[in-house]
């Protein structure tokens, strides 16, 4: 077996050094009643060339956006990842390293975390960022736990226009902790209903969560949301960002009244990956730094006074504080964080903006092409690279028709919003061409 270096001779020699007559002797501490008495019910080993073919076969049983332009977004956007990213991720010094607990041997990883934290804080208009969380959904849930520690209240108001899966994970995380999660409806423009929001406020509300852009792709007026929260025991305002590329074009949430930003940065250089691994994050103001969940990297000096980096403020974390930690998270999304750091360095301020403008432009073009076929947006609010429309037929049927034309259609909104039956969420990134947009408009426009 190619991953097991021990030869029979090695094993004999090692047993000799130990003073055991067989490997079985070394297992004697497993009581007989706890031993497995039969072979594992698993197939036999498969040789590398055969196994590789098996995965190719599995992969071609799927139909990826490689051959079918993808108009699906819904929290996962089909962006291109420049070639150097994967090549650099495959540097064994990065991908076969552990969490940087021994900083003298991990300055590469640590410096990259410090750079990531700096770029995420800058993009979101905040002071500090953590080193990653699992994904946008768990980051949203962690934001609620964080806001509770800061504010003490136990009610979270979450816009119904926040990603349905994020809201579900938020409920899973808080259900047994005595939180109340209350949804705030959306208006005709697709934005959070400010009247309903104000009516729902109480001194127990620790956090108000709105999507930015929200699940319908609509950009919220965060400042107006923030203004409506003024008063005694003011809650924190959290912006939930599931398409991080939008940050390149929008005034940062931190400059629009948000106290924290949580979400998903997968758009920065990671593959769609059928949903994971992705890249959760939280950024916030300096005042809330000590309540952040997850790892933080800080600058320091070594014994010779040279700049270096370490994991810091670790007394927030489970390996020190155990049940009193700010989160139970240990392993996070280190390599995804590295991918995002490389991506942002590659794009730079101009590249990221150009790419975002292109996303905006493609989506606006698709919107126009659909309008010309009589398919109109569901909401009037401004959108980035995704928007909701009302289709003349069941979206599931429309998607079947799209698939026949080799297009991956949109997200059927009735899955998350029964009240929006017939609604379909469509995304357009830099990877769909004008021609593909025209084809989709023709397919959807031809249905009735």
């Amino acid at each position, binding site marked *: 077996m190619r991953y*097991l270096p*021990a030869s029979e001779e090695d094993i004999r020699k*090692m047993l000799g050094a130990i003073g055991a007559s067989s490997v079985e002797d*070394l297992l004697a*501490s*497993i*009581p007989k*009643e706890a*031993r*497995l008495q039969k*072979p594992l019910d698993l*197939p036999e080993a498969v040789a590398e060339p055969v196994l590789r073919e098996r*995965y190719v076969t*599995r*992969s071609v049983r*799927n139909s*990826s956006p*490689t051959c079918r332009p993808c108009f*699906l977004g819904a929290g996962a956007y089909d962006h291109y990842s420049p070639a*150097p990213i994967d*090549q*650099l991720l495959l540097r064994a*010094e990065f*991908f076969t390293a*552990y969490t940087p607990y021994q*900083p*003298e041997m*991990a300055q590469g990883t640590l410096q990259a975390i410090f750079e990531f934290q700096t*770029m995420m804080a*800058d*993009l979101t208009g905040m*002071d500090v960022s953590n*080193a990653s969380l699992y*994904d946008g959904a*768990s980051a949203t849930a962690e934001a609620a*736990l964080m806001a509770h520690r800061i504010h003490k209240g136990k009610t979270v108001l979450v816009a119904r226009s926040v990603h349905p899966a994020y809201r579900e*994970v938020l409920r*899973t995380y808080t259900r047994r902790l005595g939180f109340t999660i209350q949804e705030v409806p959306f208006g005709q423009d697709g934005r959070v209903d400010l009247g309903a929001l104000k009516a729902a406020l109480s001194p127990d509300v620790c956090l108000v969560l709105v999507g930015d852009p929200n699940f319908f792709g609509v950009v919220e*007026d965060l400042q107006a949301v923030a203004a409506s929260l003024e008063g005694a025991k003011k809650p924190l305002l959290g912006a939930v960002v599931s398409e991080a590329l939008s940050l*390149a074009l929008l*005034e940062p949430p931190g400059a629009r009244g948000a106290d924290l930003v949580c979400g998903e940065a997968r758009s920065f250089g990671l*593959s769609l*990956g*059928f949903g994971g691994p992705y890249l959760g994050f939280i950024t916030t103001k300096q005042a809330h*730094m000590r309540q952040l969940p997850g*790892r933080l990297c800080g600058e*320091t000096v*070594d014994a010779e006074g040279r700049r270096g980096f370490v994991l810091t403020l670790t007394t927030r974390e489970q390996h020190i504080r*155990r049940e009193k930690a700010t989160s139970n*998270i*240990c*392993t996070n*999304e*280190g390599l995804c964080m590295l991918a995002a750091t490389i991506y942002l360095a590659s*794009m*730079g301020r101009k590249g*990221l*903006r150009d790419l975002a403008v292109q996303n*905006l432009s493609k989506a*606006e073009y698709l919107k126009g092409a659909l309008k010309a076929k009589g398919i109109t947006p569901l909401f009037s609010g401004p959108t980035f690279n995704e928007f909701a429309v009302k289709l003349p037929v069941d979206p599931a049927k429309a998607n079947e028709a799209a698939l026949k034309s080799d297009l991956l259609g949109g997200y059927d909104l009735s899955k998350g919003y029964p009240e929006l039956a017939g609604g379909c969420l469509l995304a357009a990134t830099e990877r769909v061409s004008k021609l593909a947009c025209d084809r989709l408009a023709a397919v959807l426009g031809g249905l009735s």
Partner: protein
Amino acid sequence: MSRIEEKLLFEKDHPGRVGASVPPCDVPEVSPEAAFGALARKAPLTRLPEMSEVDVVRHFTRLSTYNYAVDMGLYPLGSCTMKYNPKLNEEVARLEGIARLHPMQPESTVQGALELMDTLQKALCAISGMDACSLQPSAGAQGEFTGVQLIRAYLESQGDARKIILIPDSAHGTNPASAHFSGYAVEEVKSAADGCIDLEALKARMGPDVAGIMLTVPNTLGIFEKNIVEICKVIHAGGGQVYVDGANLNAMMGLARPGDWGADVMHINLHKTFTTPHGGGGPGAGPVACKSHLEPFLPRPVIVKRDGRYAWDCDRPRSIGKVHGFFGNFLILVRALCYIETMGGEGLKKSSELAVLNANYIRARLKDDLPLGFDGPTLHEVVFCDKGLPNGITTMDLAKRLIDYGFHPPTVYFPLIVHGAIMIEPTETEPVEELDRFVNAVKAILKEAAEDPELVKSAPHTAYRRRLDDVAAARNPKLTYKP
């Protein structure tokens, strides 16, 4: 060759350079101001540097040279299972039809992906002796959280969620944190002199307020919980549930299965036992496997097969809900299955046997030089203590000096119940000559500690950085670049 001092990205910002190409736009350009009005960005993106592709590649390649990694040598972190990460896994996880799938694609277009997940679930059930499995949790701690939620949901369905989870003092910190975030109070169970749980004390403590116990088997001392079957009986007789933390599953693949002992639920760290890379801190995956009575509560959706086709079943009214935005860290799952299929059942068993052999070899070769934390027989890892280190040399000094000998240090100061713990897990993928090189390094350092303690106390001397001041870092936190 000396290492280049690589600046921060922000110090390399070179306006006018570009490191990636954006394709020409084939539709009319829309300006953000036109689209968003006052919401359009006015703030400059100060901290996104402008660099060429060459600049970017050199920057991160240079950073990589400051790291140590499994591909360079032994990485003996106890309870972390730093095995070799097979290259084939990386290749198959990058096939376009696997890496570039949208999670919301119609089921008919992702049959290969669903088949793959279903196959992995069945393999993990076979290895753990459990009945059902969820691949959603993103890492071990989220697996723990999910597992305790299953216990809680089940007990609630029986009428009483109860209040307390018992956790041994040798447990990882994630265990008490995960129990706490599931709404349970944590009560510590003291280890007996042999490093195992005191069965009589447990019997005396078990009562109607106890929801269950979280046990790492073998425990963090590398010791197999000798009364595990009896412990399961005691907890069940008292109406509780048994959670097994699978962090140390690498000691027992094909040798022992938690499901057979009576455990109700466990998580499995694919980034430990199943060779997916640690990546400098993730991404991992922490699937949860459970007995059939907990199956209705698993995170939704679950994979089902209808008329020969795979599908997602979202209609799971008793589910604890989702723990992941989509279905879990799929590309990590792909790597783990590729490893399992490479090894086969026999190969996995052989791996665990050799992991135990390697750890016992290090133990045998060092036990006259370093005292053991606990005496009893150990499996895949061994824990030494700092008693007898000469001249005020600490565990940390020994660890840092190992860096000069070209090794990553072991896990240190954990488990907490061993004074100055030095916890070594070599794994089965280390050749004996690498183990010898490590043992000889420890012996040499102990000699230095006796003869030239300053050399050890001021280590490391050859790393990219000398000892870093983490007290200063925490006192005056600087988490972002400021010129």
